[in-house]
C-alpha cells in the first residue's frame, strides 16, 4: 500500500478552501489592508514634515510606519490561523464526512497531518503576500527598505503555527464555536501576558511582572514570538527609548523559538493521538 494519505488529504483541503472561496476572502481582506497602507504611505511620505526631517529621524519614522503595517498584518494572520481551520476537524466529525474519510486505508494521523499541512501552506502564502505587500509598498512609495524581513516573516509564521496547532488540538473534541473561542482566548492570554511584561518592566521595573510575562509566554508562546519578530524588525534604539505597540522592550530569549517549536510539536502530537482514539 502506498503512503498517499497526507498528500491526498492536503490537496483535498486546499481544493476545498479554494472552492469555498475561503482563500479568496482572506486574500481580498488582506490586500485591502495593504492597499490602504500603500495609499497612506504615499500620502504621509509626501508631507513636508517627513521630507524636511533629518535623515535619521526620517528613516526611523518610515521604519515605525512599516512596523505599524506589519502589526496589522500580525492581527490578520492571527485571525486567519484561528478562523480558517476552526471547523476542519470538528465540522467534519459532526457532519459525518469524517466517517467516510476515516474508513479508508489511510492512518488517522495522515488525516490530521494532511489538513495541518494544507492550512500551514495557506497561512504561509497569506503571510508572504501581506508582508511583501507592506514592505514593497514602503519601498515603492516611501523609498525605505525594511531590513530583516525574512527572519521576521519566519517568526510570524511560527506564531501562526502555534495558533494553528492549538486549533487542531481543540478541534478533536470541541465543537466548532467552542474551538474558535478557545483559539482566540489562547491568543488573548498571550497578548495580555506580553503587555503585563512590557509595562511592568518599563514603567515599574517590576521583576514580578517579568516573571508573570515569562510564565504566560511559556504557556501560550504566540505573543512572545511576535515580540521576537518586532525585535528583529525594529532599530536597536527603539527598544531603549520607547514603549509602543510596535516595539519590544522586554525581548524573549532566542530559546523561546525552540520552546515554541516544541510547543507546536506537542500540540500537534496531542491532536494526532486524540484523533486516533476518538469515536467517529
Amino acid at each position, binding site marked *: 500500500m502506498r503512503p498517499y494519505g497526507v498528500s491526498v488529504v492536503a490537496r483535498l483541503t486546499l481544493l476545498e478552501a479554494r472552492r469555498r472561496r475561503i482563500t479568496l476572502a482572506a486574500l481580498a481582506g488582506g490586500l485591502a489592508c495593504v492597499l490602504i497602507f500603500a495609499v497612506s504611505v504615499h500620502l504621509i511620505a509626501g508631507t513636508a514634515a517627513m521630507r524636511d526631517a533629518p535623515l535619521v529621524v526620517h528613516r526611523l519614522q518610515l521604519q515605525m510606519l512599516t512596523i505599524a503595517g506589519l502589526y496589522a498584518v500580525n492581527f490578520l494572520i492571527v485571525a486567519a490561523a484561528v478562523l480558517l481551520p476552526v471547523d476542519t476537524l470538528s465540522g467534519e466529525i459532526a457532519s459525518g464526512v469524517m466517517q*467516510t474519510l476515516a474508513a479508508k486505508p489511510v492512518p488517522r494521523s495522515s488525516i490530521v497531518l494532511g489538513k495541518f499541512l494544507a492550512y500551514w501552506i495557506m497561512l504561509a502564502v497569506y503571510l508572504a503576500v501581506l508582508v511583501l505587500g507592506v514592505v514593497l509598498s514602503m519601498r515603492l512609495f516611501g523609498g525605505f527598505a525594511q531590513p530583516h524581513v525574512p527572519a521576521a516573516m519566519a517568526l510570524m509564521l511560527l506564531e501562526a503555527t502555534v495558533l494553528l496547532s492549538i486549533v487542531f488540538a481543540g478541534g478533536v473534541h470541541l465543537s466548532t464555536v467552542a474551538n474558535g473561542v478557545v483559539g482566540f482566548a489562547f491568543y488573548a492570554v498571550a497578548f495580555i501576558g506580553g503587555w503585563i511584561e512590557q509595562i511592568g518592566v518599563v514603567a515599574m521595573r517590576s521583576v514580578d511582572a517579568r516573571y508573570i510575562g515569562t510564565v504566560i509566554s511559556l504557556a501560550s508562546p504566540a505573543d512572545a514570538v511576535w515580540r521576537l519578530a518586532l525585535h528583529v524588525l525594529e532599530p536597536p534604539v527603539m527598544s531603549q527609548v520607547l514603549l509602543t505597540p510596535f516595539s519590544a522592550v522586554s525581548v524573549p530569549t532566542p530559546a523561546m523559538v525552540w520552546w515554541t517549536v516544541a510547543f507546536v510539536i506537542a500540540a500537534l502530537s496531542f491532536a494526532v493521538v486524540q484523533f486516533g482514539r476518538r469515536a*467517529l
Partner: protein
Amino acid sequence: MHPAAVIETFGLRKQFGRTVAVEDLTVEIRSGEVFGFLGPNGAGKTTSIKMLLGLLAPTSGEARVLGARLGERAARGRIGFLPEHFRFHDCLTARELLRVHGRLYGLERRRIERRIDALLERVDLQDAADRRLAEFSKGMLQRAGLAQALIAEPELVFLDEPTSGLDPLGRVLVRDVIRELREQGTTVFLNSHLLGEVEATCDRVVLLKQGRLVRELPLQDRGAALEIELKIDRSDAQVLEGLRSFGEEVRASGELVRLRASSDEVIPHIARWLVSQGVAIYAIGSRRKSLEEWFMEAVGDDQRPG
C-alpha cells in the same frame, strides 16, 4: 476463524456511559454472502457497523474482519463503506469525489479513471459527473456515495441504509448493484429498514433488538417458513399428532389447524392422510410468512413506536 468467514465476532459489546448499545454480538458472515442486519431504531446496528470498520472501539469482545483485527489499515483497503446519510465536501464534483476516494485507497491513476467512468454509468450519474455535490438531490448524493464505496472493487461492502432518500427507481438500481456484487463474489453487509428490499436481496438476515442478536433467518432456504392452514371437522389429539409428521408448530383453534412446513409439496400428502383418517376437509390454504411478519413477531409489541 473459518476459512470462508469474512467477518467473525465474539461477544462484541459497546457501552456508552450506562447505555449498552451492543451486547454480546456473536456472528459469522461468510464470503460472498449478502447479509442483512435488521432491527428497530436504536437497536445498535450502526454502532455495530462502526465497530467493524474501526470507527469505534468496542468496550469488550473480539472480532476479525477479512482476517484482520478491527480497524487494521490493510483490511480497510479491501472494504467499501456507504454510511447512512452520505455526506462529503459538497464543493467537489462527482468525478472529483470518486478521484479523491480512489487516491485514498492508493489506486493507480489509470485504474481510478477507468473505475470512475464505469461507476458513474452504473449509478446513473454520468450526466452529472462534473456537477458539484452541492447541486445534487438527496438520492443523487446517495448514489454518488454508493459509487465511492465501490471505487476500489472491495471484497466486503458495508451499506448502511443505502436506499434512504432514493426513489423507487433508485432503489431498484441499488438492488441490482447488490445482486451484481453477489455475482462477483463480493460480501455485502446490508443494514436497511426496508424489509422488502432485504427480502429481495439478502441470503441471510439477523435481527438485533436492544443491542442483542435475537434471531437469525436464512432467506435463500427459509426452512419451515410456509404456514399451512386447514379447516377440518375434527382436531383431536390423534389428528394433531399425525399432522406433526408433516410439519412443525402444529396448533389447533376450533375448526382451524395451522402448521409450518418447508414446502407446499407436503400439502397433497396431508390431504391424503386426513382423508384416510376419515377427517372431512373444508379448506386448505398456505402462505409464506413475510419478512415483515417475522420481524414484527421477533421484535414484539414493546418496540412499536408510541
